[in-house]
């Protein structure tokens, strides 16, 4: 049923529909409305989870790790410095192959202190062994949670995942969403079947120390599992499309790319603005298109190579900066790698850091810059300040 609600509340609804056994989180702007609403749902009996209140993000994710190891479907949510505080636990959750799902209401990293949106927080954890999905709107913010649990808990995968949605821009925006019925989600997402369970009667250890004779094989298997996550995401996405009529059949979404000369590559809420900008550019005779990355980990290399084969230039829009890297953005080099040998020009454009607004005219200007072979740069800087 279509309803209008705040993005954070759409996420809380999605989590409730997934029937988590344990929720543990520590409030932080702009994630707070999600966990407030979930706490309310648990308190009034709408959500049959144990809500573990903690004193920090470190403890929140540690609680989830323990609960997941004991066989429970678990959930957390955070952002920015809260995620940074979880850094150590993130690697442990992934290494112990626990399918914890965490919403990231993407926010800039301090210092300087910023509560506003960019994607530096989750991008900075790209190597932790969590898959990373990025939502364009409230509907996707909701639906990607259903997919995330399906992917994470599949025994071919058994990796944790982030569902990333832009702080404020999506978390604090009211817009219509189609909320699936509980029986539909129950059919799509069966109860969690753990691979191994901590059980006092049959004791096992998780996260033990691995000598040099064993460690590399653990990391190899995680990488193999991430490749499987791409397959499971495609399968589960197709099933979701059949059940609910919304297409999540792949790691990417293509928009007006067929005859495009300039292609944007982007993640998250900016994709909506880019689509509107593309419609205007095309009306003015500029053949532009968009490849939206719904997944950053696993990275959709083959999809990029196929979808962008015919374009002349690629503009990767980055709400992050890998300070000191040649292209500046984190996604640019991977897109360039996917297109290696094709002769297509690939550039990164750093946009929207710390909540700087991104407008349609900015997108049109970036298309011009890419066509003129100018890139790997900040766009929208206030040059009078630097």
């Amino acid at each position, binding site marked *: 049923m279509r309803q*209008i609600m*705040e993005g954070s509340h759409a996420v809380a609804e999605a989590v409730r529909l997934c029937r988590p056994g344990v929720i543990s989180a520590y409030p932080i702007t702009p994630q707070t409305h999600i966990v407030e609403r979930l706490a309310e749902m648990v308190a009034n009996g709408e959500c049959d989870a144990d809500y573990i209140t903690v004193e920090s993000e470190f403890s929140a994710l540690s609680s989830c790790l323990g609960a997941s190891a004991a066989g429970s479907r678990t959930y957390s949510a955070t952002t920015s410095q809260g995620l940074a505080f979880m850094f150590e636990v993130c690697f442990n959750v992934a290494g112990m192959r626990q399918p914890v799902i965490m919403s990231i209401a993407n926010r800039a990293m301090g210092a300087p202190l910023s*509560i*506003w*949106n960019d994607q530096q927080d989750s991008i900075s954890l790209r190597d932790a062994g969590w898959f990373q999905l990025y939502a*364009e*709107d409230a509907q996707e913010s909701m639906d990607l949670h259903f997919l995330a649990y399906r992917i994470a808990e599949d025994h071919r995968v058994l990796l944790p995942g982030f569902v990333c949605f*832009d702080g*404020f*821009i999506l978390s*604090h*925006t*009211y*817009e*219509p969403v189609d909320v699936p019925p509980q029986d539909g989600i129950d059919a799509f997402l069966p109860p969690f079947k753990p691979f191994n369970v901590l059980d006092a009667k049959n004791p096992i250890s998780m996260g033990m120390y691995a000598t040099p004779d064993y460690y590399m094989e653990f990391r190899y298997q995680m990488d193999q599992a991430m490749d499987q996550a791409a397959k499971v995401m495609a399968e589960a996405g197709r099933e979701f499309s059949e059940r609910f009529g919304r297409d999540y059949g792949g790691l990417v979404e293509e928009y007006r790319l067929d005859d495009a000369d300039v292609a944007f590559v982007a993640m998250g*809420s*900016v*994709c*909506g*603005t880019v*689509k*509107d900008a593309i419609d205007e550019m095309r009306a003015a005779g500029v053949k532009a298109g968009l490849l939206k990355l719904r997944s950053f980990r696993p990275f959709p290399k083959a999809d990029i190579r196929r979808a962008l084969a015919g374009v002349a230039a690629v503009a990767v829009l980055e709400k992050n900066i890998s300070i000191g890297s040649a292209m500046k953005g984190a996604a640019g080099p991977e897109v360039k790698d996917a297109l290696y040998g094709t002769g297509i020009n690939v550039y990164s454009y750093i946009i929207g850091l710390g*909540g700087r*607004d*991104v*407008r*349609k005219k900015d997108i049109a200007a970036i298309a011009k810059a890419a066509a003129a072979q100018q890139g790997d740069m900040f766009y929208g800087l206030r040059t009078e300040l630097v």
Partner: protein
Amino acid sequence: MRELRIHGRGGQGSVTAAELIAVAAFESGVYSQAFPAFGVERRGAPVQAFVRFSDEKIRLRSQVYEPDYIIVQDSTLIKDVPVFSGLKPDGIAIINTEKAGKYNVPAGVRLITLDATKIALEELGLPIANTTLMGAFTAASGEIALSALESALRERFPGPLAEKNITAARRAYDLVGEGA
């Protein structure tokens, strides 16, 4: 697509107004989107909130720079904040003020001034004019049905408080309908 920009001060309920207008628009049968200007919310500081209305799904995520409508909750903002910036020539400006003064609105703009704070004080006993101004917006813009606004208010506020807000909104609705 039509766009509304609400100017107010922290504590005047600009974000709530945007949300409730979006809810009422959705209930009236269009796609809507409401969001704040993501400032640091301090009581008394200038704030903005935005609403978009469209017959199609709304994808645009940037702030509103060329609104079709503006609501100014507090006319003392006008000397500090460029509230009329980008307002479309055929747009509507609704200003809450004690006395109708001369405002430098762009040519062609329909200017509506009303003492919404007075109405709010009489009906709610509080100088919070956001719901009153929503009534004015409903009458002036035609974007939302009065019944949809009333149900949005009933959904947000508990019984008697909802009815008081509805009475305030209706007074402004009638006032603007009569060409205030």
